[in-house]
């Protein structure tokens, strides 16, 4: 019985309830939210260090032994994801202190934030496939409400697309669970993996695997299911955008990593070949979509899609080095992408618009912000010595070693086009002079933006840290990949030695 496995789920649930009680007292809500997300981050770090030292940790809920009860399992991938969720949750909570208006806070922003984090952490830690569905729904319901907080027209339209496609994905997921349960008679993921290794009919398993691929592909924003993402991510409050960009699609990616390394490894030539094509198409469509956009957050939204492609590429190549690259990429991406959205929010606060054509001259007026933008932007494009360079380098090296030349070519071209998009933002927002007619727009001004600078600076420092200290991060990713590629470690940890 290891308590630390459950803490990252219990803490946000507890603070979610607490902020509900404190509904009328804004100040108290804000303080408890920062404290709560901070505690969650600490518990996540504790979990990661415990998992690093003692191997895969398992907690049997209610002391019902696996495979009959629900288990929470923390392997290194899960623990890493929980830490990343803690970092982005804490950063968002601090950022919200000045960026969130009273009107939005009054409609339950803070309780929803905690519920979303609880759902995300639950999904990362559960070892039961139906429980994964439940955590997905917890996360989705909270995200629905966060998405329409404010109730503007664009939010409503984006929300309809987001809600519909995510519900379709949930229905697919549920159907796939039903079929899998009919086949194996169990819901425990370790037990399913164990039972499927004796299954004699790989055809039906591949069909179920494809259902999971579609379902998680919708959630991850993979080609051709990504349409809900650019339609909705630029509409909510910017702190919400940043949190969504950091975590929601990554839950889908995590689920793909989990099921396609643990459960569906019977017919790797077929399933992972499809994943490879999906990865290539996701990268290309995302980056080309971004090239056509001239709105700050829309460009970033499309870039989420193209980055998802890199992560899936790591999974699809399915060599030890490629999985390391995929895990490294997730770590790099969550920090960088959340930070870019936070920068866009500060630009909006100072200038009152997200349209690139109406912006300009910010390098002259806010040189500090320009540098803080440049760090995550260049990291996203993969310029050494920032974190993105090492993430891309590992993946491309893995592609070369696997002799999958065309995916390497796609990855390199997409990296170049990413640089193009980032330079476009740099040139339009920071470098060129602001057009006269937009110069005198009423804005919030820079009052209270110190906290925002602090958050952005902290995240940028993390990016630099991952880049300069790539070796220890690589070690962690390497150990996580080792666990992923040896499912027997996971199965033995959950079911005990047999």
């Amino acid at each position, binding site marked *: 019985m290891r308590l630390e496995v459950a803490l990252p789920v219990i803490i946000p649930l507890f603070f979610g309830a607490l902020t509900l009680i404190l509904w009328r007292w804004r100040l108290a809500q804000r303080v408890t939210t920062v404290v709560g997300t901070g505690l969650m981050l600490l518990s996540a770090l504790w979990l990661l260090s415990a998992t690093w030292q003692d191997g895969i940790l398992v907690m049997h809920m209610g002391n019902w032994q696996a495979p009959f009860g629900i288990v929470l399992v923390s392997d290194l991938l899960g623990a890493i994801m929980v830490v990343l969720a803690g970092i982005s949750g804490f950063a968002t909570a601090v950022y919200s202190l000045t960026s969130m208006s009273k009107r939005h806070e009054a409609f339950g922003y803070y309780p929803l934030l905690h519920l979303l984090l609880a759902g995300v952490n639950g999904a990362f830690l559960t070892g039961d496939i139906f429980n994964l569905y439940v955590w997905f729904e917890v996360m989705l319901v909270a995200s*629905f409400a966060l998405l329409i907080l404010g109730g503007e027209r664009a939010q409503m339209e984006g929300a309809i697309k987001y809600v519909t496609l995510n519900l379709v994905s949930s229905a697919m997921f*549920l159907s796939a669970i039903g079929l899998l349960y009919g086949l194996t008679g169990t819901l425990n993921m370790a037990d399913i993996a164990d039972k499927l290794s004796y299954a004699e009919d790989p055809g039906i398993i591949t069909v179920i695997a494809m259902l999971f691929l579609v379902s998680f592909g919708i959630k991850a924003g993979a080609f051709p299911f990504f349409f809900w993402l650019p339609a909705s991510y630029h509409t909510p409050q910017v702190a919400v955008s940043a949190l969504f960009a950091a975590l929601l699609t990554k839950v889908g990616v995590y689920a793909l990593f989990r099921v396609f390394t643990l459960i569906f490894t019977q017919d790797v030539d077929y399933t992972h070949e499809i994943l490879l094509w999906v990865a290539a198409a996701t990268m290309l469509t995302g980056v080309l979509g971004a090239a056509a956009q001239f709105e700050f957050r829309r460009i970033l939204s499309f870039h989420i899609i193209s980055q998802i492609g890199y992560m899936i590429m790591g999974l699809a190549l399915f060599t030890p080095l490629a999985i390391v690259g995929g895990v490294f990429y997730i770590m790099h991406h969550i920090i960088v992408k959340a930070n870019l959205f936070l920068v866009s929010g500060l630009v909006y606060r100072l200038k009152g618009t997200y349209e690139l054509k109406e912006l300009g001259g910010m390098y002259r007026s806010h040189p500090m912000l320009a540098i803080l933008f440049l760090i995550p932007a260049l990291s996203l494009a993969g310029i050494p010595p920032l974190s993105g360079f090492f993430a891309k380098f590992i993946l491309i090296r893995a592609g070369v070693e696997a002799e999958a030349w065309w995916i390497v070519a796609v990855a390199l071209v997409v990296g170049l086009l990413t640089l193009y998009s980032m330079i476009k933002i740099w040139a339009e927002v920071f470098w060129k002079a602001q057009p006269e007619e937009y110069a005198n727009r009423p804005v919030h001004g820079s009052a209270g933006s110190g906290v925002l600078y602090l958050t952005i600076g902290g995240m940028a420092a993390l990016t630099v840290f991952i880049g300069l200290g790539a070796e220890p991060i690589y070690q962690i990713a390497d150990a996580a990949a080792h666990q992923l590629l040896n499912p027997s470690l996971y199965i033995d940890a959950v079911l005990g030695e047999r």
Partner: protein
Amino acid sequence: METLMAFTVGGLFAAAIYMMLRRSIVKLVIGLVLLSNAANLLLFTQAGLLRGAPPLVPEGAMQPTGVVADPLAQALILTAIVIGFGVLAFAVVLIHRAYEVVQADDMDQMKDTDT
């Protein structure tokens, strides 16, 4: 019985997709209702259909005698129905609010967010 259920589930999925491809957002939500119910029925059928065999342990025995229905699948469906109900309640409120804001129930008029 399972064959009949299979056709029912297939029909429900087809009807759901058809409704979701319509332009009206009300029909879209009806499609979502059908879709979640189709998934629930699929889960129900997968566990095997068994009449008049409740999973009860007779008094004094340690385990049920004979073949009994699978209670786990029914527990899952119960959970899924509750979740689906909550989410659909949200979806209904959402389309109502969207109708008030956009002044149309036509998906083709909701293009502000796509370019």
